[in-house]
């Protein structure tokens, strides 16, 4: 028996909606749902305006915690979780990274040139994941918490690698999120890693 899918029109907040994975999510989900985007381009910087973003998002059904800036994804997640933890209609979707699986190794040539190569990026993505686990696994909560870990994705963020690494497209990640948000309320995809099967040839 297939999953019964929700066809409800949802109100969805997305940070970092103007570029990369966030833009693909925003463009795809806007076709069926009401989306609000928060990016520096429209005056929302997650390093400075977390309270303003939370205030504008608290009445949404889904929050996509996508924009990256040091540990500010954790700050946003923690604040929103406090507001939503007892509400079984809410979903928080965190965009992590495949790099959370990496033991940092600066001998890996493919990791040297970009922000993903930095130890702080790997460490921050690990911190985000562990902060989420601590609430997801050990606290009694009703909202859904979903963490997606994309591998190399064809965005401007890492465009100098486009020719030498096999990447997934941001639209692939957006399609996965579209599938996840319409699953039945009682089913939580707690964590999902997605990447190209042969990233480095």
């Amino acid at each position, binding site marked *: *028996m*297939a*999953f019964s899918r929700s066809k409800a029109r949802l109100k969805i907040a997305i940070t970092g909606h103007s570029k990369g994975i966030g833009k693909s999510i925003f463009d795809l989900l806007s076709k069926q749902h009401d989306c609000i985007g928060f990016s520096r381009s429209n005056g929302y910087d997650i390093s400075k305006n977390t309270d303003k973003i939370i205030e504008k998002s608290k009445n949404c059904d889904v929050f996509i915690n996508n924009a990256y800036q040091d540990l500010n994804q954790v700050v946003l997640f923690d604040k929103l979780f406090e507001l939503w933890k007892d509400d*079984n209609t809410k979903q928080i979707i965190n965009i992590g990274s*495949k790099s959370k*699986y*990496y033991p940092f190794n600066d001998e890996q040539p493919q990791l040297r040139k970009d922000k993903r190569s930095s130890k702080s990026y790997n460490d921050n993505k690990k911190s985000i994941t562990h902060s989420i*686990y601590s609430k997801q*696994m*050990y606290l*009694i*909560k*009703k*909202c*859904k918490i979903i963490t997606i*870990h994309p*591998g190399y994705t064809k965005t401007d963020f890492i465009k100098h690698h486009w020719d030498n690494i*096999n990447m*997934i497209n941001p639209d*692939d990640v957006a399609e996965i999120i579209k*599938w996840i948000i319409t699953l039945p*309320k*009682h*089913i*939580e*995809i*707690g*964590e*999902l*890693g*997605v*990447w*190209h*099967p*042969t990233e*480095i040839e």
Partner: protein
Amino acid sequence: MKIAITGHSRGIGKACFDLFSAEHECVGFSRSNGFDISKDITNIIDQSLDCDVFVNNAYFEFKQVEIFNTLFEQWKNKLDKTIININSRSKYGGGKNQFYASTKKELANKSYNAMFSDKSCRIININPGYVETDMVAQHIGKFKMLQSSKVAETIKWCLDQPQDIEIGELSIWKTTLR
């Protein structure tokens, strides 16, 4: 596709076997038909080599790890092969059965190492929470459980992704466990 499934006679394995058989050719390996992963891994691997997908589902101590390692060596350079490990939420820790959790953590570690090696086949790790199976029947009433058919549906979704997309890990459970 031709799909091999260990532990196909009960629980998640049976749900996968029943669901996938509608569209694919499935081969099942269980004690009920003479295949015991605690005793004879070689025979199971040999009979699965011409399959496209291997669902490493049956549990016995560290045998899932041994099966994964052996099959990965055979399939790692083959683009059209997929290994699906049925892991567990217990790999995150917090469960009472520490031995079970350690075997599942080891399976996760081995598959992560494989994911980051030079490989071509797809590796998919599924981490279900409590599922309504005989194995966890003693917990019924204490925890909310998933139906094994829902886990099978999710595995099918992973498998149905294009060959250039690998759902390396997917964790699924009831939104509120208690």
